[in-house]
């Protein structure tokens, strides 16, 4: 009934959910980011179990690796300290989480209802290797790739520009 891959999926999913919950509820930014890394890694496992090894690798390399490192650098640059933690606690106190939680819960309920009631049969078994992805990527999705590269270029220019201006007070 339950193969190892399947078990891995559920375990990884559970870890992802819990770590994400923790990530968004930490008062100290670094803690949050660490939980987020856990979350990303477990999502990578999920990807792997779903038969997408390329994406799983990229998840680890880019999300957990590059992006979060970026976050960490920023946190370091900002020199966040205890004052910020107190501030954070003050912001997070009381019922500030209640409304968003309810809203999100309703949304989630709706989405789940949609998924369950829809014709979403079938299992997640087929493995789609890097080769197929690469063929599709540089075949029909060429334009998308070009656009994505443009976007990234724009982001590079934008980020550079913003940080440059800052350097000149």
């Amino acid at each position, binding site marked *: 009934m339950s193969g190892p891959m399947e078990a891995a999926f559920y375990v990884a999913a559970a870890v992802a959910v819990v770590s994400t919950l923790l990530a968004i509820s930490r008062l100290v930014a670094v803690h949050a980011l660490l939980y987020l890394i856990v979350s990303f890694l477990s999502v990578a496992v999920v990807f792997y179990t779903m038969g997408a090894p390329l994406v799983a690798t990229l998840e680890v390399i880019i999300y957990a690796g590059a992006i979060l490192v970026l976050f960490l650098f920023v946190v370091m640059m900002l020199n966040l300290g205890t004052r910020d933690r107190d501030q954070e606690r003050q912001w997070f106190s009381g019922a500030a989480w209640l*409304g*968003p939680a309810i*809203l*999100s819960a*309703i*949304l989630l309920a*709706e989405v789940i*209802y949609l998924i369950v009631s829809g014709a979403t049969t079938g299992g997640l078994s087929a493995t789609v290797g890097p080769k197929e992805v690469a063929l599709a990527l540089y075949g029909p999705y060429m334009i998308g790739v070009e656009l994505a590269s443009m976007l990234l270029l724009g982001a590079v220019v934008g980020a550079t520009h913003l940080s440059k201006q800052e350097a000149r007070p």
Partner: protein
Amino acid sequence: MLELLWLVPAIPFASALVLAVVRLPRKVVAWLAVASIAASTIISLLITYSFLHAPPAGNAYTEVLWRWLDVSGFHPDIALYLDPLSLIFMVVVAFVSFLIHLYSTEFMIGDDGYSRFFAYMNLFVASMLTLVLANNLLLLYLGWEGVGLCSYLLIGFWYRDPVNGLAGRKAFIVTRVGDTSFAIGLFLLFQQLGTLNIQDLMRVAPQSWHVGSGVAVAVAFLLLGGAVGKSAQLPLQTWLPDAMAGPTPVSALIHAATMVTAGVYLIARTHVLYALAPSAQFAVAVIGAATLLLAGFSALTQHDLKRVLAYSTISQVGYMFLALGVGAWPAAVFHFMTHAFFKALLFLGAGIVIQALHEEHDIFRMGGLWNRLPVAFWTFLIAGCSLAGLPLITAGAFSKDWILWGAASAAQGSTGLWVAALVGVLLTSLYTFRMIFLVFFGQEHTPIAKKPGAAMLIPCIVLAFLSIAGGYIRIPFAHFLEEVLPWTTRVASAVPLSETASATAAGLVFLLGLVLAWFFILRRPSLSSALVKNPAGAALHRFWFSDWAMDWLYERLFVRPILWIAQIGKGDVIDGSYDGLALLTQGGWRALRSTQSGKLRWYAAVIAGGTIIFIAVVLFL
């Protein structure tokens, strides 16, 4: 000769146009104005001559000038119609106008609106002649409104004083109330009979309606409304006394001799309709009788010379209405003619007196003028006697006796109406001699400033002659009108008195009035002032003086509510509702703007909420 008929109204009209547009020296203005009316008068006399000697076929002559308009079955012409009735009116109007124009050339000489005055006066004469000669009711209506306009303009001629303007406006509006009724009458006539040609109407109406039919009564009453307004009869008489604000020749011409009798003409012209509507005709008689009494009482109490004459005019026109109402048609027209002579003369005399005394209008500040203004005195006396009805001699007595006789004996006559008319004679005699005694006898109060010249005296003398001689043509006059306006006699019951008896009674009553006036004014003035001082007498005096408080009543009943409505509506209530819409939009804008708080998380929440709602809608609807 008859084909010159169109010139009769056209010449004054052309002259009015010239006077209005071109700036001319005074002499030329006077000449042009008088000459145009003189030409009109001469042509109308020539026409009369030819009409009498070689009567056209059917004793009537129609001159079509051009087709006014032709719209789907409605095609009135600009056309003139001459028959004995319109002939009499035309001649009297033209002739009296001529005399009064002549008088005005001197009377108005010092006024800086000389040219404007004569332009208006000529326009009035043209309109009046159009009214009288019109062959259809639409053209008659044109003349009708034209004379109303000129009346307005001339009452407010001295425009610098707003009071005059108000009087003019009042006159125009009050008469226009009647005109509206008249216009509705025209709509009804056209709707029912499909034409507005008077002769066609008179021919078709008896065929279409039986006596006393509802439509006929309605039409007759609607036309009566117009007549009542223009002729200053109850209940629309209030404008005429105020109309005395205009220059005196205007009062003489428009508000005594001609325009105010337009109502009489209208009813006489459409007498067939009244024959079909006995109840309306009876209403005419009752209105006439009531007006003549009410106005007579009011005349007794006035201080202003011209206002006395104004009430007297109302009262005399009331006589004409009485005559029309009882069916004594020719008597009404005859009284119109004699009244035109003597009442014009009275006003002209009053003008001389007023000008002589520095614009003094109060009869209690006049007096002893009889030897200082002899011509004015004698002519005024003759006219006064004619008005009061000095028997056997004066024209007024003839016409009034005729009306009295009609009130007793004509189709709709009754003893009650006869008695009313007789009381009217007493009142007339009383106020006439009260006025004459106060103005010309007794003590001198104000010195004389100006003596009248020839241009003012000649018309007086001519009119004085006519005020006496006019009465003697009664028999041929009646004969002349026979075909157009037959006297309708009562068939059923016997008349309780004879014509001679009626005339004798009138003569005695006249004498009684004369004596009473003499006694109260000259013999025992203290008695009359005591009468006025007595509380009951004072109240009555005030009541009569204010024209039976009708002005007071109308002011509260109509004028103020209308002004009040206009005032509260000033800001446009409807616009307020649009402003409300604008405010609502503004409120919505404010509400929506407050959502643009600039808070990132709020936006995100709204997006999430929207997504939730959207999905919910997709899912569950």
